[in-house]
């Protein structure tokens, strides 16, 4: 599935939940369930700069040149959104990752649940995703 299609599926799936707060709660729950970030990678060098909370992001490229991301955050709200975003980009080719903006944030009205400083933090996460993809 192309990344654009994958993003649209994500939007369609979460749009089933009509109430924006309930939708946000589902995204927070997604983050809570995601506990696979390796403890030994919670390093200063993996911190995403510019986030108000601590966000760690790592990525690696597989044999088929697809990039896989793992992310963790110390704030449940931002972690849910970050996991959603990284899940969308994970397993995709670098050029697609770089070319596809995370429209899902606005489409699901997640931006309404986040302060401007946290939205800025999300932009830094997206920027770091692009950097990792570019380096792959």
């Amino acid at each position, binding site marked *: 599935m192309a990344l654009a299609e994958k993003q649209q599926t994500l939007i369609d799936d979460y749009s089933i939940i009509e109430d924006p707060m309930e939708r946000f709660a589902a995204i927070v729950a997604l983050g809570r369930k995601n506990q696979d970030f390796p403890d030994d990678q919670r390093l200063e060098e993996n911190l995403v700069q510019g986030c108000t909370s*601590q966000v760690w992001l790592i990525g690696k490229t597989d044999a088929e040149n697809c990039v896989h991301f793992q992310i963790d955050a110390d704030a449940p*709200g931002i972690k849910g959104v970050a996991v959603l975003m990284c899940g969308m980009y994970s397993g995709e080719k670098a050029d697609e990752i770089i070319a596809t903006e995370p429209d899902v944030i606005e489409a699901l009205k997640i931006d309404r649940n*986040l*302060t401007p400083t*946290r939205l800025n933090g999300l932009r830094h996460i997206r920027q770091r995703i692009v950097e990792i993809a570019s380096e792959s």
Partner: protein
Amino acid sequence: MPEFNIDKIRAAFPILSREIGNKPLVYLDSGATAQKPKAVIDRLTHFYEFENANIHRGVHYLSMNATTEYDEARETIAKAIGAPKVEEVIFTRGATESVNLVSNGLSETLVEGDEIVLTLMEHHANFVPWQILAEKKGLTLKFANVTDTGEIDMEHWKSLFSSKTKLATFTHVSNALGTINPVKEMTAFAKDKSDALVLIDGAQAVPHGKVNISDLGCDFYVFSGHKVFGPDGIGILWGRGELLNAFQPFQSGGDMIEHVSVSGTTFRQIPERFEAGTPNISGAIGLAAAFDYMENEVGWEAAEAHEQSILKYATERLSEIEGLHIRGTAPDKVGVISFTMDSAHPHDIGTILDTCGVAIRAGHHCAQPLMEHYKIAGTARASLAFYNNREDIDALITGLEKVQRFFG
């Protein structure tokens, strides 16, 4: 003085009757900026509708009237804060500019090796200017520790003084914790043990009770107008005249000069010395209106007593919430309750509360060294003013229960 009636007080603040997302506004962010009573709003409107003119240099009625209003505003504020001399009250953009003005003035006299004693609970506004000056001049900064209850470790603070101490600066009230520091005693100690000048950051103290600068014994006292129910962009530096007149001007231009010629310029004495260009005339007049309102319509003592009763109620209610930790439990506090929750990040708390119409602040509160000391990224902070009531606290508690359901 009218009797303190919280419903009448709240009615005097138009913004408190609005809704946020179909919920009544619960404003618990007065530490960031206080709301404005109609008396201040009306005074600003009246100035622009009927009195607007530049000051000091006009020969027409409006200019002379605006000059009188501006000068009277200074007198009102000087009286309200107990400044011994009116001209020692300088209008600035706010507490931040006031501190910068003093650090700029002291840069002429401080030399390499001189020491400044600060505390770890300073707002960045009373931290960064000294750090920059220290780097520029080779000064040593010494920081007093803060105890677990959020008070200055006095033994440690006292141990920092030496013959090289040239300035002691400390906040009157911690913006992040609400702690009221014993500034009079601290000033007396600093003066007794050293030749240090003393600067007090009063930004978070002035909105919570009557301050009498003459009684404190300090050399400089700074605060912002917008936190004391006045307009934005206006603040006060009070300083001893002989010290201020010895400082080089902070900014230069019109209004602050005595004589300008191609061979050189001479500068006026205070207050004009530090009020270059057209000042914030309406801001000064609006700030005086805020002090008038507090003095004549509310009464500082009644306001303080009411705020303390709400603080007590809020502290009791918040203490009942499992997994909530209040940061700053000093016995002497203003209406600031900083807290963390096991289940949620401060920003998450702020986001959920916002959906309930409850406005708080979340983050490091411009006090990152203090947060580092406590080894926390930040706190959620509910900050009160005399216009808050028990219903505001009940709404906060309901919101926090929602936070627990959401993230718990």
